[in-house]
């Protein structure tokens, strides 16, 4: 059965191929809206209601953020740092979803307050399994704080 909810999932992902595949898999397990930002700058604009996202209704607050690290403009670590420093945003779970398994980067992300760090598998079935598990974990297993819609 598909998981559902009104609060969406924000994918901060510059690779269109990675986004397409993630979206393809997520669509089959959840009815939640899926939003995407293609770089760090626009992700922060989205979350902080700045620039093109100045109107709050254009940028509904996500229930979960999937964050790639290797991003144009502002990189993923900086996006993570700003999210975790913002009183309003810091309760949103941020799952780092990236290619690199370098111990240094994993360490930095957890230092900055990442809620999970996951390495993107180069294996479609594993990716599907990972994303399904992620959805189940954040939306069925754990309880997240209540969030008033903007």
């Amino acid at each position, binding site marked *: 059965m598909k998981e559902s909810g009104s609060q969406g999932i924000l994918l901060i992902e510059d690779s269109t*191929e990675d986004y*397409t*595949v993630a979206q393809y898999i997520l669509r089959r397990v959840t009815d939640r809206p899926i939003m995407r930002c293609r770089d760090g700058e626009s992700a922060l604009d989205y979350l902080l209601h700045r620039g093109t996202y100045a109107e709050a209704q254009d940028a509904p607050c996500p229930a979960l953020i999937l964050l790639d690290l*290797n991003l144009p403009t502002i990189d993923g670590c900086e996006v993570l740092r700003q999210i975790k420093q913002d009183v309003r945003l810091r309760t949103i779970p941020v799952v780092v979803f990236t*290619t690199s398994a*370098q111990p240094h980067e994993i360490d930095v992300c957890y230092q900055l307050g990442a809620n999970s760090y996951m390495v993107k598998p*180069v*294996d*479609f079935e594993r990716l599907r399994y990972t994303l399904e598990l992620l959805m189940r974990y954040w939306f069925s297993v754990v309880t997240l704080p209540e969030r008033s819609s903007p």
Partner: protein
Amino acid sequence: MSSGLVEHEATVKQYAEALDRLNAELEQRVAERTAALQRSNEELQQFAHMVSHDLKEPLRGMHNYAHLLLEDLGSTVSGEARAKLQTISSLAQRMEGLINSLLHFCRLGQENLAYEDTDVSMVVHEVLNLLHITLTQQGIEVRMPQPLPVVRCDRARVREVFHNLILNAIKYNDKPHKWVEIGAFPAPSVGMTPSSTFYIRDNGIGIRPHHMEMIFAMFKRLHPRDDYGGGTGAGLTIAKKIIERHGGTLWVESTYGAGSTFYFTLPGSVTRYEGEWQPGNSPDRRQY
């Protein structure tokens, strides 16, 4: 003052000046070399970052898109076309395996070793537990004629060495009754530090003499890609690198058709052998 003494003083002064000049030159050279080393370390770090992020991304795209295509086409696609699409995605995965090995190898040369007193017997048992399924499936006899010493080394890295060498011993074996023997003996000391030689012996396929050096080259395999369980061909290169980082050496002796023995030394034994062990005395023999 005698003229001899004046002359002498002048000479001393000259030498002192020359020494100062040489010292300054040396310092300058050290500073330059250090800067160059720092630069090359940074470049290596950037290279590792580039490899792990940028090279893998298109690869993942290729793999995933082949899968999306398979799902979209569903039952309309013929068995042959399906096999070709699956080949595309498995090739992408193979490439990822190669990139990961390369990255791991790069990191091994850079990172500091986490030295700790390590009971090598325990490390080997951890590896055997990890390989339990393979050992059972192939009915492999594991022989440990004597307990292994405690050595000051990077535990995780040395575990990796044993893992790679034991896995090779299992993989490259075509005998009906397969065995692997793991042991150690004292090696000549390195300076004041006592040293141990470990060995992993098998009754496998062995290596022809003219291939002995080649097996340590990165991604070098002596067999067709999918024979003997496949693999990227990085295991021995990585094992050798780890041992060399510890200040040891790794080498092989082999008889083609009869089996191979891989040896490596690790300086820094904490305890040498508890009492005198007799080869073959109370051997730990396990039939998997």
